[in-house]
């Protein structure tokens, strides 16, 4: 309605100045968004319908790539199953463990600074370094972990070399780096009003009831946030799985052999590695783009959860 009323020239000029100013401030990102997000996304969609090996001209191939990936590519569903496993087990355990460590750190009175740093430190270890370190610690031959398990008379699994233990080993690596969640939960726990605990205690609530009826309702948005971002991160799970497979199999770059990701027996094979393998090892860019788009769709579905008003990620508007 306001637009229909005559606007004084001075006000119009001010508005125009403001629009130019806003554009100027946003300009780096507007370019970045167009060139590094918009364009490649459209291009990924385009290539998913093309046959392209990076050398000959791309030719239109209709739904052939889609059909190939979903029905004949033998490793697609294995990758989906592994990714699903990681999403369910790794994310759940990381959130539970992160919350547990976060609660522990808020209760520690003596040496709190030392414990906080100790718990946080592994999160900082570069993933490649951490993975190679774990591949050593958990190597079945001479690794300290199996050495200790043997001393205690416990079974000594093959960890990164055994298809049924490789994902649990990667999960342990992920739990080791739980520091980010610990800090987020710690901040949330310290924000819970103390009076609510006192009131609950007066009502005779035990530890579990205090957690269930006071702590949890207060921190549930953060738990939700941790779960959703955890799922999105796990969809991108790449470096640790690939490096663990390479180190455990002994096939690394300059050994002359090409490493097929997923060692042992495809048990660490995930969707992002599929994009890499199809695109950069087999030069089937079209099929790689199909997998990329599927990955995109799932990631955006979870991002939509974060964007809902309730999640609070959009923050207060002023």
């Amino acid at each position: 309605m306001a637009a229909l009323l005559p606007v004084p020239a001075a006000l119009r000029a001010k508005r125009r100045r403001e629009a130019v100013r806003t554009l100027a401030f946003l300009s780096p990102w507007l370019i970045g968004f167009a060139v590094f997000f918009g364009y490649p996304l459209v291009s990924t969609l385009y290539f998913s319908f093309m046959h392209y090996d990076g050398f000959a001209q791309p030719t239109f191939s209709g739904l052939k790539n889609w059909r190939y990936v979903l029905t004949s590519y033998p490793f697609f569903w294995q990758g989906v199953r592994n990714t699903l496993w990681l999403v369910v087990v790794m994310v759940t355990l990381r959130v539970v463990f992160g919350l547990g460590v976060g609660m522990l750190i808020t209760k520690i009175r003596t040496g709190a600074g030392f414990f906080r740093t100790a718990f946080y430190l592994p999160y900082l270890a570069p993933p490649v370094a951490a993975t190679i370190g774990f591949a050593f610690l958990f190597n079945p031959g001479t690794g300290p972990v199996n050495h200790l398990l043997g001393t205690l008379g416990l079974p000594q699994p093959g960890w990164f070399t055994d298809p049924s233990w490789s994902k649990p080993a990667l999960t342990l690596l992920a739990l080791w780096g739980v520091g980010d969640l610990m800090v987020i939960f710690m901040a949330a726990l310290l924000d819970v009003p103390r009076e609510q605990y006192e009131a609950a205690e007066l009502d005779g609530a035990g530890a579990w009831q205090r957690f269930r009826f006071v702590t949890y309702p207060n921190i549930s948005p953060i738990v939700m946030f941790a779960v959703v971002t955890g799922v999105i991160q796990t969809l991108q799970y790449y470096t640790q799985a690939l490096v663990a497979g390479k180190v455990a199999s002994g096939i690394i770059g300059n050994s002359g052999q090409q490493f097929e990701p997923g060692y042992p027996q495809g048990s660490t094979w995930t969707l992002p590695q599929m994009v890499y393998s199809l695109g950069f090892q087999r030069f089937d860019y079209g099929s790689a783009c199909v997998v990329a788009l599927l990955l995109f769709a799932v990631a955006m579905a979870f991002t939509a959860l974060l964007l809902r008003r309730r999640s609070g990620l959009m923050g207060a508007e002023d």
Partner: protein
Amino acid sequence: MTDALPAAALRARPTPAARAARRRTALHWIAVHALGVAAALFFLLPFVFLFLTSMMSDQQALTSDLWPHHWAWGNYSKVWHTPGFLTWWRNTLLYAGLGTVLTVVSSLPVAYALAKFRFRGRRIALMAVISMMMLPPQVVVIPMYLFWAKQLHLSGTLWPLIIPMAFGDAFSIFLLRQFLLTIPREYLEAARIDGCGELRTLLRVTVPMARPAIAAVALFQFFSCWNDYFGPQIYAGENESAWTLSYGLESFKGAHHTNWNLTMAATLLVMAPVIVLFFFAQKAFIEGVTLTGVKG
């Protein structure tokens, strides 16, 4: 419950109930700290074992010994003088250093506009930033690779990873915006009344106030470049002289197949800068992590 007792009774000599309460507190202290020690062992022992192995001789590293017979400090200088290692250091510093500076400079004005300007499409723009932040890098890698390699002929270098950081980084924009929201409008109004333009307000008022958030963003970006494996693998993989530490470390393991001691020394040398930097900037870092949660 002790709360039900009259205050006078508490002040007098300890009643059995008060003594029981104190004993409970002591037991609680012990239980909590015992758990803390157990958790600390879980988090720190891997570092200890890596270090101990890095100190072993070549022969001993092949055994399942936990403790080195002789402390072979020479392993570290051996790693340091491995061909390529210094080049990887230089490349990583260039990638992470330049990338951090570019990210902060390009993301700050965008975050400021998203936090403080009112304009149509602001919500959409923020949603787009969050979507970009959550995008797996593998989704757009095929066209981006073709763009950098086939059109700009920059494969075999780190430039395809550095240049985009001059155009804002979604995560940094988001984190800075969350912090800028907490700066009261009045400060900015006051600057404007004093005749500052928006750019001067940003540089003179906002930047000094947002120093902790800027420090956090810079650290995060530095670490994410330092840790990046996928980017260097795609763009620099074909050219060993452009490798970064994270990428080179893996091939170091390949070249020193049986020498776990040297590999562990190299691994710790790659971890060290990140950990040293953390000790210097711990506070900014923890604040930054908290800010990425649901706050603001």
